[in-house]
């Protein structure tokens, strides 16, 4: 048993750090650091293209589909280093979600058509799962696809489509069959968002930003060639995707970055007798969360080790998701607590961290809600891990 990376892995990390230092554009890095999403579309796209040129566009994909052939620890290191360097997060919807589904269940034509364009940032994918009436209870979805010749006619509404305002493709769960359990009769369909009848409406969130959307489908004609796998078997593919989506789900890199930011705020903020970093009460809170992060990192590495040795990630991902989001939210709370009354001012900018800390705090409430709420995760832990 050995908790540390070996020398090859450390060398890989150093290589990444050098690359990030040299190739991550300063303006992108600055915007990401400041929480400035005014150019988010270009920033994500440009960075993806830079990675693609380096051959690192799809860190988790096998070589045959354009991946770098990295081991899981390498992918993990890549994730952490990119986050620590304030690189834009790569878009998960193509790379971590629909991509793996197409690799596993798509036909050769679909693989050739879609996969290279994901890595090259030619397509921007979004996810069409949730609906107004089906959030946690995904299987109750009601968007329908009806056969009409060689096409499907799609009608319905999707919600919470993250960054869908920039997307040209959406992968959807749609209802193609009736009867039986609600999980039956669901199909997995790829839809070109430029098709007539697709309407996108960004949703204003509590932090004033627009990052999710509502999408309406009104008699949208989708070729049958855009169906993944078999009709009515979409639930199987969705479940596969949910498992796949959750590698390095704890988000260790971003948590480390925000912990560092917290410490910097604390170091420059005066407490009762010293800076908050040396204030007994506040420093104890920082110490607490840093210790919890150390534990979570070991849990993550162990889950990764077991996954590499055995098989696909199991329900343990629910532990990583829950603890990762709890710790991330806790750090966000501590950032505003450190700033005190100054945190209330969200515009105009006072200094680098103040407005961002509060907007982050608001925005990150989503972490325990989206992607399977933490209540759902605890259900999964109790039922699938503990067998209750």
């Amino acid at each position, binding site marked *: 048993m050995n908790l540390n990376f070996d020398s090859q892995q450390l060398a890989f990390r150093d290589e990444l750090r050098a690359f990030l230092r040299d190739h991550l554009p300063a303006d992108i890095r600055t915007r990401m650091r400041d929480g400035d999403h005014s150019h988010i579309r270009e920033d994500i796209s440009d960075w993806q293209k830079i990675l693609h040129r380096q051959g690192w566009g799809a860190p988790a994909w096998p070589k045959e589909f354009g991946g770098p052939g990295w081991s899981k620890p390498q992918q993990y290191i890549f994730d952490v280093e990119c986050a620590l360097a304030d690189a834009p997060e790569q878009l998960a919807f193509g790379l971590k979600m629909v991509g793996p589904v197409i690799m596993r269940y798509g036909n050769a034509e679909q693989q050739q058509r879609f996969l290279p364009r994901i890595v090259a940032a030619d397509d921007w994918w979004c996810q069409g799962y949730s609906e107004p009436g089906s*959030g946690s209870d995904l299987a109750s979805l009601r968007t329908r696809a009806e056969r009409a010749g060689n096409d499907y006619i799609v009608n319905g509404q999707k919600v919470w489509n993250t960054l869908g305002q920039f997307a040209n493709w959406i992968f959807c769960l749609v209802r193609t069959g009736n009867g039986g359990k609600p999980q039956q009769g669901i199909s997995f369909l790829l839809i070109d968002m430029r098709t007539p009848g697709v309407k996108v409406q960004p949703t*204003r969130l509590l932090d004033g930003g627009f990052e999710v959307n509502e999408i309406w489908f009104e008699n949208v004609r989708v070729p049958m060639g855009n169906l993944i796998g078999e009709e009515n078997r979409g639930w199987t593919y969705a479940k596969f995707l949910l498992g796949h989506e959750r590698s390095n789900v704890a988000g260790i890199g971003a948590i480390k970055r925000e912990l560092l930011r917290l410490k910097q705020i604390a170091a420059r903020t005066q407490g009762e007798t010293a800076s908050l970093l040396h204030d007994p009460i506040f420093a104890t809170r920082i110490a607490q969360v840093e210790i919890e992060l150390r534990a979570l990192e070991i849990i993550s590495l162990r889950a990764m080790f077991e996954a590499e040795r055995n098989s696909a990630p199991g329900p343990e991902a629910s532990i990583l998701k829950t603890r990762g989001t709890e710790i991330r939210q806790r750090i966000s709370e501590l950032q*505003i607590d450190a700033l005190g009354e100054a*945190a209330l*001012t969200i515009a105009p900018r006072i200094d680098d961290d103040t407005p961002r800390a509060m907007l982050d705090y608001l925005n990150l409430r989503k972490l325990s809600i989206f992607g399977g709420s933490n209540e759902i995760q605890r259900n999964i832990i109790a039922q699938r891990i503990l067998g209750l």
Partner: protein
Amino acid sequence: MDFSYTDEQQMLLDTARRFVGERYPFEYRQRVRDSAEGWSRETWLRLADLGLLALNVPESEGGLGAGPIETMLVCNALGEGLLLEPYVGSAVVATSVIAELGSPHQRQRWLPHLASGEVVALLAHDEPDSGDDFARVQTRARREGEHWRLDGRKSQVYHAPAANLLLVSARTEDDVLAVFAVPTNVPGVHLAAQKTVDDQCAANVHLDGAQVEADARLGADAQGALRNALDAGLAALCADAFGAMDKAFATTVDYCRSRTQFGAPIGTFQSLQHRMADMLMRLEEARAMSYLAASACSHSDLAERRAALAAAKALMGQCARHIGQQAIQLHGGMGMTDELAISHYFKRLIAFEFRNGSTDQHLRDYRKQLRAA
């Protein structure tokens, strides 16, 4: 020991609630929020018409001369309505300062106009370096002939852009803490407006040789009156926050009763039921502490008063965070949107946590006066 309200108090609460229900529904509030000013003079005059701006004006100046309990009840209702207008700042704090410190002439000059809504006055007291000692004021007032000249900086005066009168605390040359009535249009008064998380406006106030007449000084030593007014304001802010918590909780319970997942209202799931039971317990704690704040804020024993207010603000800040976060969580994705009222309650409660001394600061103040017996 008596937890009932008098008939007059109950009427006051009903009046304020009716105003919110009829004149300040959420849709109207959001239109005010999106307006250029960010607050509504029309609403302000309505509050005046209802007599609510005269609540803390002494009867001698034609006001209601009411007390902290009445203020608490009105602020409960205004917090329920997410009011964007500067009620606590102008109708409680500034009104109290003038009522306590002002000469008969000054009281007559300002208070009727505060009651009628023509004047919006705000206390500009906190400074960037004031730290924990509320009497530590670095703004200087120098007598120059028939005028006072004021120089200094005041930080994060909530609602300042809405005011036409600032009550500025400053130290005179003989180091007395004094308060001056400073119209905002006086040269040398600069406001740097800031948007705050709860869709309100605050401003840093710069005083660069602002000149006011000799008569602008309110009373002599202002320290006691400032403490009283700030404490009355703190209790009123607690009442506003309780109103917001109460409504946020009720809204959440309603949502969980109607939102269906897995074939049942989510309010039937035991883990969410227990979560709401916890929220209710925090709400009852907040109510108790809001009572305590109202009951103690005019207490003559200053140490006891400060301890009670510190206790109230600290615990209510924690309740606010708990209830706010859980309200969002239980609303799921809908809680993340700007569209529903719940996210606005959440943000008002965040502002409460940090205004007039954060939860941590009040907890520290309380901790420091602990005794073994």
